[in-house]
């Protein structure tokens, strides 16, 4: 155990919700990141504002494996409520750092882990007078202790503190003092640093540390959304908030103070999507963000937008279902309810980002695609991606990029034609030309409706006409398959008869699992789906492998069902690899399921 391990551990902070620990924990992760070491964070928080236990888990890995990993190497426990559970979750040989202002009850003692007591509260009471300060600086005391125990460069932490309090500089010295209290105490009482430690690397390149929801909000801002309607729901709320924060900065006329966006907190999710549809029908780019329960509520409207052919962008930050489920835990369990939201023959375009950079890109792309296809586009993220800080490629924007507003007739174009028909398939791709209200005094007006209609948007109950329009929507769906983001294929050509398909945040653990397998001499081909409808590459990948593992985070193998249903694949060919306990899927879990489902034998090198 005494051999030194650099930059490879899982550290968990056990805090009480609402005690200011989040900013200290963010400081810690930022310090690791700024030392050039890849790191990813998971907030494990209760559906509560103040008082309940909350955990913050970081995986530090210089090889860049940043999916969740089971087992805690270092626990920083500052919550007496969860002490027993916290001690039990530390791996044998791991470290348990705790506040020993009060002695740990002997029943908590455990032989196979190291206990490192730091009198955090006592040190704060000795040096700070106000109770609120004592509470807040306790967090800085443990950060100080970690500086010495884990070999963090103190100047990196100092810089972060200076930057954080740049507008209130008098807070810098007491924060430094609290850090020193922790540092000095552990230096005096323990051998520092621990064998499990950090060391500067140059492994993060130009990457950034950002949460997916912020990236999504920014993507919508860059993509030209000007109307946003939303209803608060965990874990999607910060998407709208991020949009607003940056819009206030970058969409405000410096002279008049007027805003080039409108954001409405709607009365419910139904109204939110209704506003998006109304705005998009009227020619503005609009979006809403919600989670599973919101998608259920929005279903009727999504069907209207599908059938009446109105662009709409919806971000679904998935959480644990069913019903209210686990609002503060992650899942990929709204695949079917989103893909087929609403009654009748209805289906929707889905995009599956797996990094914040992709959240940004796909939020902007969704606005283009919705306009182009005149249909709802749902960006399927999840709580893990949306609310946790991830190491991500930087967000990219090309200033030459123009918004693709799709097929919209101008007044001049209307003037040049004999007769306008809203649902005439002029280009034979299933996508018709729309007009925006107010365009022309006498041409191009029509009534948009959710009822059956003819090519001129007139109500009809004619059987052949109805079938024709429903078939055209199917044709449009085929066109969509060629327009949506293509899957990422991880090998130039097949190297195995076995394949693996994943999407969204399952990517992190799936890629790590495949590398672990490769170390055992087993190579499996892999593909990450980025959109629905599936394009031919996905079908070919399944076709060209004997068996394909489908990794997803729900109980009912929803993504697998979608593949079977849409690509007419034999179900036996698709082997489910699942995780649905609300925590992000791990590489070990994927690896074990693959080995188990093949009896460990089918996969020989």
């Amino acid at each position, binding site marked *: 155990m005494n051999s030194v391990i650099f930059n490879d551990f899982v550290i968990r902070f056990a805090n009480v919700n609402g005690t200011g620990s989040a900013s200290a924990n963010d400081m810690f992760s930022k310090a690791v*990141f*700024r030392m050039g070491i890849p790191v990813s964070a998971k907030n494990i928080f209760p559906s509560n504002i103040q008082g309940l236990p909350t955990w913050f888990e970081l995986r530090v890995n210089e090889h860049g494996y940043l999916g969740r990993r089971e087992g805690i190497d270092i626990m920083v426990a500052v919550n007496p409520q969860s002490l027993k559970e916290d001690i039990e979750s530390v791996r044998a040989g791991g470290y348990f750092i705790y506040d020993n202002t009060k002695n740990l009850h002997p029943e908590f003692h455990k032989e196979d882990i190291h206990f490192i007591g730091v009198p955090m509260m006592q040190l704060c009471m000795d040096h700070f007078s106000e109770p609120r300060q004592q509470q807040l600086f306790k967090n800085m005391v443990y950060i100080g202790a970690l500086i010495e125990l884990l070999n963090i460069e103190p100047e990196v932490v100092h810089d972060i503190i200076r930057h954080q309090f740049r507008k209130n500089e008098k807070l810098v010295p007491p924060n430094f003092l609290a850090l020193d209290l922790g540092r000095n105490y552990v230096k005096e009482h323990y051998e520092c640093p621990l064998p499990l430690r950090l060391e500067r690397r140059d492994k993060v390149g130009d990457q*950034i540390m950002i949460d997916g929801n912020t990236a999504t909000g*920014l993507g919508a801002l*860059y993509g*030209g959304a*000007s*109307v946003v*309607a939303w209803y608060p729901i965990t874990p999607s709320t910060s998407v709208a908030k991020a949009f607003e924060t*940056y819009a206030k900065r*970058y*969409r405000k*006329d410096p002279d*008049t103070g*007027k*805003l*080039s966006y*409108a954001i*409405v907190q709607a*009365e419910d999710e*139904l*109204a939110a999507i*209704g*506003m*998006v*549809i*109304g*705005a*998009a*029908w*009227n020619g*503005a*780019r*609009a979006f809403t963000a919600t989670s599973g329960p919101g998608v259920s509520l929005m279903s*009727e*409207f999504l069907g*209207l937008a599908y059938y009446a052919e109105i662009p709409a962008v919806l971000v679904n930050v998935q959480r644990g279902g069913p019903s209210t489920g686990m609002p503060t835990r992650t899942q990929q369990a709204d695949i079917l309810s989103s893909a087929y939201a609403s009654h009748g023959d209805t289906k929707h375009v889905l995009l599956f980002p797996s990094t914040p950079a992709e959240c940004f890109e796909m939020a902007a792309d969704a606005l283009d695609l919705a306009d182009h296809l005149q249909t709802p586009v749902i960006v399927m993220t999840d709580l893990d991606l949306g609310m946790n800080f991830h190491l991500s490629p*930087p*967000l*990219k*924007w*090309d*200033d030459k990029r123009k*918004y693709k507003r799709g097929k919209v007739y101008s007044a001049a174009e209307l003037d040049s034609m004999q007769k306008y028909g809203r649902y005439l398939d002029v280009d034979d791709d299933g996508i018709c030309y729309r007009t*925006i*209200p*107010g365009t*022309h*005094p*006498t041409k191009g*007006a029509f*009534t*948009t*409706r*959710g*009822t059956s209609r003819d090519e001129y948007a*007139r*109500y*009809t*109950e004619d059987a052949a006409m109805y079938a024709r329009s429903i078939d055209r929507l199917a044709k449009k769906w085929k066109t969509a398959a060629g327009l949506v983001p293509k899957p990422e294929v991880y090998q130039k050509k097949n190297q195995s008869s076995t394949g693996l398909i994943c999407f969204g945040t399952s990517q992190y653990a799936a890629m790590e699992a495949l590398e672990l397998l490769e170390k055992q001499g087993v190579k499996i081909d892999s593909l990450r789906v980025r959109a629905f409808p599936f394009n031919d590459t996905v079908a070919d990948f399944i076709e060209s492998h004997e068996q394909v593992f489908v990794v997803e985070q729900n109980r009912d193998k929803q993504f697998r069902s979608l593949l079977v249903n849409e690509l007419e694949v034999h179900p036996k060919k698709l082997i489910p690899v699942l995780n649905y306990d609300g925590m992000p899927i791990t590489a070990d879990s994927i690896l074990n399921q693959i080995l188990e489902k093949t009896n460990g034998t089918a996969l020989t090198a």
Partner: protein
Amino acid sequence: MSFIKPNFRHPALPKNQVGYTKADYEGAISTLCAGCGHDSITAAIVQACFEIDLEPHKLAKISGIGCSSKTPAYFLRNSHGFNSVHGRMPSVTTGAYLANRDLIYLGVSGDGDTASIGMGQFVHAVRRNLNMVYIVMNNGCYGLTKGQDSATADTGSINKEGGVNQFAGIDLCSLAIELGATFVGRSFSGDKHQLVPLIKAAMAHPGFAFLDVLSPCVTFNNNKGSTKSYDYVREHIEATSELDFVPHRDEITINYQEGKSVLAPLHDGSLLHLHKLAPGWDPTERKSVISLIQTSRTNGEIPTGLLYLDTHTRDLHEVMGTVKEPLNALTEKELCPGAGVLKEINDSFR
């Protein structure tokens, strides 16, 4: 089926100041029952739009589901229409209005569409003072599904099958006033003389303009004992005022009577002249309006006309501080902060 009317027009039809004949404001032939009150409201909308010299494409008509919500197909064929989903017209209109503040939004709804399934969206549109005209074609029943009582049916009203309504009817005008609506009127589909100027005034009002129009259902709720039948409504309506709508360019030649007249300038320069008939009522005093409605109700009377008006109003775009230009006209230049800014944003996450 919607039938299309022939486009032939008699060359001598009078034209308004923007060059349109009244027929230009019509739509497809109605498929509602002969004698339906809704068709009279449709005719009043056509008349009002013709008289205010509306350019048809400067208006968008939006509805929910129900008999009433079908009517946008029957007027203003040169305006875009949106027959959306049941009870959700207000949210669609809100979005449309946010996208383009320069159009007039005419929302058409029914008593089921508004007072039951759409109540939530209705009250929030009022609360936001959404700049729109909201017309409820109120017949106290569900026509398309064959005559069930709606939430505006009065207690004790008898339906066609002889059922007596046991529940309190929701008074949409009182509710709208309570919630802060800035223009509230009630009328009767059969009173074109009153309804046309009300619609014109509502369109000129810069905020939420609500019109509850009693519109008897000839097929399912026109029987003896119904309080929404033609006979009952005719017998019980009491006009609170005579209303003149004076467009901004016309000379004002009204007969102003101290104590009896209310003059209200609207923000586009038009003028409303109300000649009060009801005693003790002041249309600019919320309390007196509520009192009038409640007293009339007790007496079995239905007060009609412009009931409440507040011209000191800020519409939603004003409250939100958005740019003058419609949001749907903005381009990359105004909307996209650009790659340079994104570089700074990236740096803030390092």
